[in-house]
C-alpha cells in the first residue's frame, strides 16, 4: 500500500468522527487532509492555534518562489489593500501558510487561542504521533539525538481538547510497532488519547489497554496482535473501516 493511500485511508476514517458544529484543531501534516473528507452537510469550525476560528482555504504558495515575488505579494496584500476573504500578509495558519477566512470568522491573540485549547472549548483535535501506548500516552515531539524543533502548542492542545484523535501510520518505516505497552520516546501528554486511526485499525482504550474497534478489510486479528506491542482486546461490535 502506497504512502498516499495510507494517508487517505486514515483521513477518510477520521472524517466521520467529527460532528456538525464542532470546533476542531487539525495538526499539521496528515491531519489537515481530514478536512477534505468531511461530509458537506457537516459544518465544522477550525481552530488555528496562532489565532483564528474559521479558516477557509490555503492560498497557493507561489509567492514564495523568490524574495521579489514575496515582497510584491506582501505589498499587494497589506494594510487595507486586501482582506480576509482574498488573503492578507497578516493572515496565516499555524503552519505559516497564507489562508483566507469564512464570513463569521474571528481572530485573536495567543492568550485567547490557548484559552480555547486548554479551557476545554475545543471539541476535538486531530494530531500525528510517533508512538501511542496502552495508557493513552502520546509521543510526538522529540526523538533524542535528532534535531529538536520544540513542542509548539501540542502539549497545551492535548491537555484541554475534549477528544484527541491520533492519525498515525500503523508501524514505523522499519516495521516496528508504534502502538506500544509504554512509549519509549519522550511524552507529549499522558492519558490523553481517545482514538488512534491507522491504515489497519481504529483503536480505543479501556482500563487494560488497547481496544480494536474497527479493522481495514483484509487485515486479520493475528496481524494486529503481531504489529501492536501491548495489551490488545477486540470490541464486540467490531466495525469495518472505510476503504
Amino acid at each position, binding site marked *: 500500500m502506497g504512502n498516499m493511500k495510507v494517508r487517505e485511508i486514515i483521513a477518510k476514517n477520521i472524517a466521520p468522527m467529527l460532528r456538525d458544529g464542532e470546533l476542531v484543531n487539525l495538526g499539521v501534516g496528515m491531519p489537515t487532509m481530514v478536512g477534505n473528507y468531511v461530509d458537506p452537510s457537516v459544518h465544522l469550525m477550525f481552530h*488555528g*492555534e*496562532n*489565532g*483564528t476560528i474559521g479558516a477557509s482555504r490555503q492560498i497557493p504558495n507561489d509567492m*514564495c518562489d*523568490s*524574495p521579489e515575488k*514575496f*515582497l510584491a505579494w*506582501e*505589498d499587494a496584500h*497589506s*494594510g487595507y489593500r486586501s482582506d*480576509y476573504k482574498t488573503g*492578507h*500578509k*497578516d*493572515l*496565516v*495558519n*499555524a*503552519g*505559516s501558510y497564507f489562508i483566507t*477566512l469564512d464570513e463569521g470568522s474571528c*481572530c*485573536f*491573540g*495567543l*492568550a485567547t*487561542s*490557548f484559552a480555547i*485549547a*486548554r479551557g476545554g472549548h475545543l471539541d476535538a483535535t486531530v494530531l500525528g504521533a510517533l508512538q501511542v501506548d496502552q495508557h493513552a*500516552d502520546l509521543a510526538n515531539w*522529540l526523538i533524542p539525538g535528532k*534535531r*529538536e*524543533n*520544540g*513542542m*509548539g*502548542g*501540542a*502539549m*497545551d*492542545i492535548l*491537555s*484541554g481538547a475534549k477528544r484527541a484523535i491520533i492519525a498515525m501510520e500503523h508501524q514505523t518505516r522499519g516495521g516496528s510497532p508504534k502502538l506500544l505497552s509504554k512509549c519509549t520516546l*519522550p*511524552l*507529549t*501528554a*499522558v*492519558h490523553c488519547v481517545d482514538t488512534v486511526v491507522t491504515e489497519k485499525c481504529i483503536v480505543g482504550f479501556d482500563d487494560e489497554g488497547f481496544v480494536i474497534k474497527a479493522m481495514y478489510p483484509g487485515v486479520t486479528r493475528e496481524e494486529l496482535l503481531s504489529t501492536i506491542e501491548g495489551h490488545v482486546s477486540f470490541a464486540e461490535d467490531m466495525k469495518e473501516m472505510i476503504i
Partner: protein
Amino acid sequence: MNKIITAEEAAKMVTSDKTVMISGFGISGTPNHIIQAIADSGVRGLSVISGDMGENDRGFRQGTAKLVGNHQIEKATLAFTGVNPEAAEMAASGELDLTFVPLGTLIERIRCGGYGLGGFYTKTGVGTLVAEGKETKIIDGEEYLFEKPLRADVALVKAYKADTLGNAVFRYTARNFNDTMATAADVTILEVEELVQPGEIGPDEVQLPGIFVNYIVEGKGAVL
C-alpha cells in the same frame, strides 16, 4: 512625551546584557524593520524570548531568522523552530542555546509577567520532560505544574497601526504575542506600518492600550 524613534535608535537599546522579547508567529506580526536594524547593528550574544526563530524554509531568511543566520543570538526561550531548520541545526551543534516551552504556557508566562502575577498552575506538560524540576500541585484532584512569570528588559512588538500615544490595532493573525509581550517588558518598542494622530483610532478599536508602549518606530513597506 514624544514616543517616536527610528529603527536604528530602537536597535541601540538591544544589547547583549539584556533579555529581549521579539514578537511574531513565523513571519506574521514581527517587527521586521527593527529586526533589520539589529541585523545591521552587528550586536551579538543576544538573549531572546520568542515564539519561534522566524522562517528560513522558503529559500530566504525572514524575521528573527535573520538574527539567527547572522549568529547574533546566543540563547532563546521559545516554543518551536519548526520553520527555521537552521536554528535547530545550530542548537544541535551547540552554538545556540534553546529552551523549549509549550506555546500555551509560553504566552501565559509572559502574560503573568506583564499582569503582575507571581506564577500559575497548568496541566500542560504534566508527566513529560517539561515537568522535570518543576513543582507540582494537586488541585481539586488533578495534577498541575507550577509555571513562573517571564519578563524582558526590552520587548519588540508590531502592530498594523497606532496613534502617537501608542494605542494600537492589529490585523488578523498578526496579533499573536504582540498584545501580551507589550505588557511584560521594562521598555516596549512598537513598530507600526501606519502612524496616526490621537482621535483617529476610537477607544473601542484599540487592541493594545498605548500606556504599554514606550517607543514607536514607523516602518513602512515590506522588509526581507
